[in-house]
């Protein structure tokens, strides 16, 4: 019997070029798996660095490595820096701080930004206007500028307020980057909430008399997860780059703890004689940012999220 169910329209329902492209996209590309693999490896090394024999301590001096003597090779995989410390080790330990800061600030951004976005999108009216103004203002400040100001002042604030004693540099950075992450997240969540609000299942819940809080938690939030995840990953890449920039500018975490930005800054004076000390941290930063971007991009295509730009 002929297959009558599938009717082809006069202009082929599937433009042949488009179809081929779509097929290619659907297969999870090599890049995605490489990105995930890299990140998993990085996290693993960062978490277990203390127990892995082949990673030296970041402060340990490599004999004979003073003043960048040793280039990349067998003794020190990525060479040594000015104080004969192992560049590779410092990079791995540096990733700890960087990843931590990135993840915590993203969580902050998701919580605060998500909350603001949901409230604005669901309740609309005055709430929406207030939140929108806040978002606009946050976005009017160039990101790095805001971060710089916040960090520099948070130090002073901490000193003058006793109950903020726990707010050491690392947490200041987390807070700052978190605030940076809030605005774009709030915007996306707001847009998604406004769209979801009018969908049938939400209307159904509301018509049954469900209280707003219940509707938000049970119906809307679960559906926000794809959007949040996507923005989170792409946002992480931006936050990590920002952390690098801040460290580079001298506003990063305190002295002994290495982060990639700091490593770049420390060693850039001698970049002509010891390129390895700057290049490898650079590379790590790039690969991490790229990996998060790849994942974020893949997620956005999977969930079909259209963003105007984070």
């Amino acid at each position, binding site marked *: 019997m002929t297959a009558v169910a599938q009717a082809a329209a006069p202009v082929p329902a599937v433009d042949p*070029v488009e179809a*081929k*492209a779509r097929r290619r996209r659907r297969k999870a590309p090599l890049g995605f798996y490489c990105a995930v693999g890299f990140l998993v490896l990085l996290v693993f090394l960062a978490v277990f660095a203390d127990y892995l024999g082949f990673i030296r301590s970041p402060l340990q001096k490599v004999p004979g490595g003073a003043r960048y003597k040793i280039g990349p090779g067998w003794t020190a995989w990525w060479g040594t820096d000015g104080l004969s410390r192992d560049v590779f080790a410092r990079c791995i330990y540096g990733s700890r701080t960087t990843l931590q800061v990135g993840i915590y600030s993203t969580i902050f951004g998701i919580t605060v930004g998500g909350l603001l976005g949901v409230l604005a999108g669901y309740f609309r009216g005055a709430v929406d206007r207030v939140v929108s*103004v806040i978002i*606009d*203002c946050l*976005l*009017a*400040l*160039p*990101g*790095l*500028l805001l971060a*710089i*100001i*916040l960090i*520099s*002042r948070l130090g*002073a*604030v901490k*000193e*003058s*307020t006793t109950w903020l004693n726990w707010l050491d540099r690392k947490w200041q950075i987390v807070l700052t980057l978190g605030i940076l992450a809030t605005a774009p997240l709030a915007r996306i969540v707001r847009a998604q909430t406004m769209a979801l609000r009018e969908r049938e299942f939400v209307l159904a819940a509301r018509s049954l008399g469900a209280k707003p809080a219940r509707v938000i938690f049970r119906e809307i939030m679960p559906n926000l997860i794809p959007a949040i995840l996507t923005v989170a990953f792409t946002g992480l*890449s931006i936050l990590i*780059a*920002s952390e*690098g*920039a801040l460290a*580079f*500018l*001298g*506003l990063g975490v305190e002295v002994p703890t290495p982060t990639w*930005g700091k490593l*770049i800054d420390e060693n*850039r004076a001698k*970049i*002509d004689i010891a*390129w390895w000390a*700057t*290049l490898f941290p*650079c*590379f790590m*930063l*790039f690969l991490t*940012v*790229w990996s998060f*971007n*790849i994942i974020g*991009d893949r997620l956005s295509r999977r969930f079909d999220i259209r963003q*105007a*730009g984070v």
Partner: protein
Amino acid sequence: MRYFLQRLLQFVIVFFIVTFGVMVLIRMGLNAPGDPARTLLGGAPSDQLIAETTAKYHLDSNYLVQYWFWFWNFIQGDMGYSVQNSLPVFDLIKLRATVTLLLGFYSITFAVLIAVPLAVRQAYKRDSVFDRTASGLTFMFVSVPAIVLAPILTIILIDKNVFSIGDYQITIGGWFPRVGNKVYPWEDPVEHIKNFFVPVLVLTIPLAAVFTRLLRGDMVQTLQADFITLASAKGVSPRRVLWLHGLRNSLFSLLTGVGLQLGGIVGGAIVVETFFDLKGMGAMLVGAILSKDLFTVQSTAAILVACVVTVNLIVDLLYAVLDPRIRHARALA
């Protein structure tokens, strides 16, 4: 017209709120230890200066009053005094603004000049080898922030790298000066280019990548529209269809992109100026923050915010210029 006024109002409100917030942030916690004026001025100001400053900016009153006086002075051109540099802040900014503006202008211009032909060609030859390679490359370049690209380009272009292969010696690099001197274009064009080339390149590459991706997406969509088929069916040459009909309709995404990327450009400029030692506003800002020269910080930040918001306003108005439908809708609104 009414729309324009609305947007102007928004601009003003946002500017006020943001600069107020910045001021509060900066002046928060000033009261301890010691005199607010002392901390604000930084360095080692004379007692007389402290007294003068406290009086002029009303540093002993609450924040709203302080803001008013700050703002009032600001628009008159009095942006505070930097003890560090022994200069009024306004003069400092004047000295440095050109560099930053040049950086921004160059990077946006070149990024657009690169993105447009690239994206158009990509959209025209969709899914060809060219398209796919270009897409991959642009995606990669989107992920190279300034801090990453600056050292890499320094190694490649600025430092002399001598490779010996057998008897041959290849020298790559050494073409550009190590420390960027802010040579103005009208002083010495060649030196100017040599000094600005690498910094601008660092900013341009990720920007061009972002713009290319934006434009390609928009063009691919536009080219599928009916009116493109009709234009071809009228006998219009593909080049004309592509550029006059296709691109013309896709420029919006590019415009939006410029507006959105502005924050990133400022951040990038800050990093680039610090890395290459270019004496622009970004470097000054960082120096001021590290040395606690807070007056400078506040005013410089205010200027940068004003610039960003202004450009966004212009972008928004340009929409009406580009798209008659929007012009129409706004006129009716």
